[in-house]
């Protein structure tokens, strides 16, 4: 049985999504994708010079990948919507990761504006993956207005601090019938593995890979960790018990 994730009618078998910012050289991106096997790659529209220069980073993304432009730089729903429309008009497809940030100190997303942008873009036929601070009610609203998945942060962007929001993300995984993709904050492969063990549908990693000493090797490490976490989740992780089970129980004489 193949373990597939379906988003926007696309079948995804590799649950590590890759970000493309912060690399010391964009020419590393094809190797990062190849070694990790990633199928979904996000690109900031602000960084794309659609076909105008030799340095167009989208040239480094293989055709068989799903391109997920993101609206980095948008400060409100209106700007996010415009960036999404621009990306689609320039041939970047109909997937869009909504990123609305009006806090340049911590880069925390504006959930309210994100809901607004999601509603507009879902109606226009986009496959919308909103990036949010984890919140069950926000996730429900996003589901109701047509989000294809919800992407809660594990910790503030770029911090590599790991799953600081674990409890809230777990509730979203348990309660929302949409793919939950942990995006931002994951700094080490074991944290990606942990998110997958929890039942996350995928994880998106950028800084931890792009700023590693060897980004290509690190991407492979993350890919393996994501696979391991997913396998563990599907296998059914054994219950955690508070007390040991004695092999010579004290009540054995009762033949219970």
């Amino acid at each position, binding site marked *: 049985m193949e373990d597939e994730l379906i988003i926007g009618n696309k079948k995804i078998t590799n649950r590590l999504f890759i970000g493309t910012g912060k690399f010391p*050289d964009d020419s590393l991106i094809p190797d990062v994708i190849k070694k990790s096997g990633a199928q979904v790659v996000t690109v900031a529209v602000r*960084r794309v010079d659609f076909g105008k*220069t*030799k340095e167009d980073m989208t040239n480094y993304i293989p055709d068989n990948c799903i391109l997920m432009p993101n609206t980095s*730089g948008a*400060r409100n729903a209106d700007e996010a919507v415009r*960036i999404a429309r*621009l990306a689609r008009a320039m041939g970047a497809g109909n997937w869009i990761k909504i990123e609305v940030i009006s806090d340049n100190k911590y880069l925390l997303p504006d959930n309210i504006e994100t809901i607004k942008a999601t509603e507009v873009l879902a109606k226009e036929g986009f496959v919308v993956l909103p990036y949010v601070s984890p919140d069950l009610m926000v996730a429900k609203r996003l589901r109701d207005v047509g989000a294809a998945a919800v992407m809660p942060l594990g910790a503030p962007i770029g911090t590599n601090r790991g799953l600081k929001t674990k409890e809230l993300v777990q509730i979203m995984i348990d309660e929302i019938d949409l793919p939950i993709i942990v995006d931002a904050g994951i700094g080490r492969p074991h944290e990606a593995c942990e998110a997958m063990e929890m039942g996350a549908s995928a994880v998106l990693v950028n*800084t931890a890979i792009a700023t590693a000493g060897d980004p290509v090797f690190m991407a492979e490490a993350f890919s393996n960790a994501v696979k391991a976490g997913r396998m563990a989740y599907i296998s059914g992780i054994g219950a955690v018990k508070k007390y040991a089970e004695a092999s010579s129980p004290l009540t054995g004489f009762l033949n219970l």
Partner: protein
Amino acid sequence: MTTFYYEYIRYRNFNFEGFFNSISDYDIERVISKDKLNIYDFLTLLSPNAEKYLEIMAQKAHRVTIQNFGRVILLYIPMYLANYCINKCAYCGYNADNKIKRNIMSIEDVRHEAELISQKGFRHILILTGESRAKTPVSYIKTCVAVLKEYFSSICIEIYPLKEKEYEELVHAGVDSITIYQETYDEKTYDEVHLSGPKKNYKYRLETPDRACRAGIKNVNIGALLGLNDWRKDVFYTALHAKYLQDKYGDVDVGVSVPRIKPHIGAFQPKSNVSDKNLVQIILSFRIFMPRLGISLSTRESADLRNNLIPLGITKFSAESSTKVGGYLEEKEYEDSGQFEVSDNRSLEEIVEMIRSSGYQPIFKDWENVI
């Protein structure tokens, strides 16, 4: 309406000497190891005592920069539209008293120059003028911006201070960034070096970033002209200003520049010398204090120094700069002496190669103006 001026007043009479004398090695070590710094921590890093900790500070600044920005350097280019100026600033080549050739670019030449520059790959442009509402009114700037929008994804203006409404107009026209230097935050020195002209109004200039932020600008770059006054004091107030802007206007990207006084026509002697070591301490302190702060470095600095500063916290680099009006045109019809002397005369290709060989990626585009 509160502005930075009222924040500045709270610190105007701060006892810098007393503070610096009280700083121990332990204080500096404690600050370097902190995750989140306050303004006094920043001043601790800026203290004379902290000079012996530059390497440890550099290691931290390097890590913080990579975590927040990655190994990338954004490249931009300045375009001087005009050098008419009615101000008499003691330190500036555009001083109205200076007998230099005054020029203003025609709109046709703005387009021509934009074509030439954009063909090189630049997508971020900084346009500059002197202060002359008669020669370069807001309507002229708007006309230029309308042309430049066809070629560039980000347009930054470094012109005279505007009213909030005028900033709104320019934001709607396609300007996303402003650069405005207070030059010096010390009011007495400010009054001494700004002999006459509208720029003499200290408070109006100081409140310019507030007006621009309220008008919806996306990126504000501030700074002091290092050397005009005691540099430690000016850098402290610059940091205070940057922190104020970041706290008050959360959706605005805040950046600083670290320009040192350069030779120009007219013989102004800086009040304090800012050595390379001082400049490094300034950059490191800024980066550790505000991890998300943009830090720009212009071609005022030498090629060697610029190469070495890349890993220390710089995020933006100008390249192949001319400080002359029409400086990129093949025809030399606007021949003038430039605002200041450029030290790093390398070609864009050479700078790109240097950035790459440092293990960093030169970025030409990092903004999409959808207004």
